[in-house]
């Protein structure tokens, strides 16, 4: 499977040449490989090095050690960067320009024909068709974010790197953005998303990585990471009193389900047998999962 992104042994250290201060290790040997066509979410606490990592991927910052390959090439190659769309965390937009002019400028810098019809269609995709005649200086935060997203989508890039893509966007807008990104995934693009909105990551991404203190402490499929190893979620037929189940070791879970901790299959079956003997009828059995917040918290605690 070809990789959209491959980082090997990335190290980055920020030194203060003037005014003293200790050097800061932003990245301490990060290895990451993202297959094409996947949606990857990078999460971590503030100061973990997420933005630095993204900058090193795109050639905006220079890693001290390690290599980066983007879409099979070097990020220094303009031809490679032409196939990448990037939305920075704090995108500066020229206040006196109109959206079409800005998108046109981006398109020209990408070496593309800035056809007004195509750019208008892009504005429509991101929900800015009504604001296309207003100057950017009069845009709200959410509108500016949508415009930035439109700029990232110019040229149908193979890799989209999005840093807080829904920052400032209203909840309905976030839904629209998510659908848009899902459409991009269906097109075959690869997504690399950095966001503090864990629910957004959960909905969009199939793989995540957790960065802490410059290290990639966990990485893998979302489902796997969120899976609770020794917990099972069980549903019984309605009408069963809860007391025997609680006595058998089950505990309440959300929406009428019960959780049972079992270290192995024998333990699980023994618990189920106790419930059956109490009169419960099993209708559903699955491994219990945690949300991303729990995963993140647990991971950071363990890595500390």
């Amino acid at each position: 499977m070809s990789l959209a992104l491959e980082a090997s042994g990335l190290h980055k250290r920020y030194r203060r040449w003037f005014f003293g201060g200790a050097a800061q290790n932003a990245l301490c040997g990060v290895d990451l490989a993202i297959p094409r066509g996947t949606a990857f979410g990078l999460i971590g606490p503030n100061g973990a090095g997420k933005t630095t990592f993204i900058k090193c991927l795109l050639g905006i910052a220079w890693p001290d050690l390690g290599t980066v390959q983007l879409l099979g090439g070097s990020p220094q190659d303009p031809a490679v960067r032409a196939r990448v769309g990037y939305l920075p965390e704090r995108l500066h937009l020229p206040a006196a320009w109109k959206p079409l002019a800005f998108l046109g400028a981006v398109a020209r810098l990408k070496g593309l024909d800035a056809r007004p019809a195509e750019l208008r269609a892009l504005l429509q995709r991101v929900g800015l068709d009504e604001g296309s005649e207003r100057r950017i200086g009069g845009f709200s935060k959410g509108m500016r974010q949508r415009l930035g997203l439109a700029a990232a989508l110019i040229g149908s890039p193979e890799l989209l790197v999005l840093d807080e893509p829904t920052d400032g966007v209203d909840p309905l807008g976030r839904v629209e953005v998510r659908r848009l990104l899902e459409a991009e995934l269906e097109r075959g693009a690869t997504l690399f998303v950095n966001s503090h909105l864990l629910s957004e990551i959960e909905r969009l991404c199939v793989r995540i990585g957790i960065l802490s203190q410059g290290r990639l402490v966990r990485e893998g499929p979302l489902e796997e990471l969120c899976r609770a190893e020794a917990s099972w979620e069980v549903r019984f037929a309605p009408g069963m009193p809860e007391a025997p189940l609680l006595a058998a070791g089950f505990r309440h879970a959300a929406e009428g389900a019960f959780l049972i901790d079992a270290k192995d299959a024998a333990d699980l079956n023994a618990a189920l047998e106790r419930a059956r003997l109490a009169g419960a009828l099993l209708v559903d059995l699955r491994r219990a999962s945690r949300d991303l917040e729990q995963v993140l918290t647990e991971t950071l605690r363990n890595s500390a």
Partner: protein
Amino acid sequence: MKPRRRRFFWLLAALVLLVLAALVKRACSGPEASSRPPPEFPRSMRPAESQRMTEREVLPPGPRPGRHRDPVLSAVSAPDAGTALVFEASALRHSPVGQLLLDCLTSTAGQDGGESPLDDIRRLGVDPLQDLDRVAVGDDTVVVSGDFSRVQWDSAFGAASVEQYGDTGQIRSFGTQQDGGASPVLATWGNQLVLIAPTQEAARATLDRIEGRSPTGQLLGDNQAYGDVYGVLSGAALGQMLGPADSPLAAQFEGAARSVELHLDATRDVELVATVSGDDPAQLGDLGRALGGGLAAARARAVLTGDTSAAELLEYAQVVPGSEKFRLEMAVPFEVLKSMLAFCGGRPQFDAGR
């Protein structure tokens, strides 16, 4: 990692370019061939000229009390004079145009196998290149100042009748000329001045002014004695100099100009300042504008014909209007004078009556 090789290229390029910039600056910073310096018009008396004037005021005040007097200015400034023009021969002699004139005189003599006028003067015992100081021209009198102590007047002009006049004056008359006209009268004042007057009365009147027995006119004062040539001409006299009597410019000058004060400097090129005074401001204004237009047209012609020297110097020509006068400033390039004197005229004749 940082693109070291690429960065090194840019750093090397920067250093090389900086060194090249310094080398180019060094190579091209020699003294540049300067264009012709702007002319210095004689608009007022310069300190050296003031000093010169003071040294020449050797005569006591005349009938009118005042400062000491310059004998040459006293000689040419008759009370009713219309013209008084002084040539500073000693200054002109050392100027480029003076050298040109001298070369012209000597080469002309060489061309026809004869002698130059300078040789005539030398035979009198005067070295024209050393002993002559000034030549002044009045309405009808020419005054030459210098050192004439070596001239043997009696042997040189033995045929003349000599009259002692005043303190140190001598008047030599030569009777009538071959064509029946009266010969000019040659007078001397000590060893310093030689006068050429039309009549004995004119010579006596000049000697009277020099020795303070009669008042001088106000035509040319001490404060106007600056430049290598200076003086006052009547409008009519200047008009005649400018062309035939029926030429429009001559007519315009005669009609509008009452007098013209001239100052000419020949240190490098010949720079001229002429202040034209008149009674009718309107006519004077028209004359000024006509002259200004004429100068502009001359410059345009010079530009068209590629005469860069003339064009360059005519850039400085201008007419500055005033209420009852205007000032004309123009410069004649040395190269133009040189071309004008390329063919020198015949020897001037001076009948010494011998």
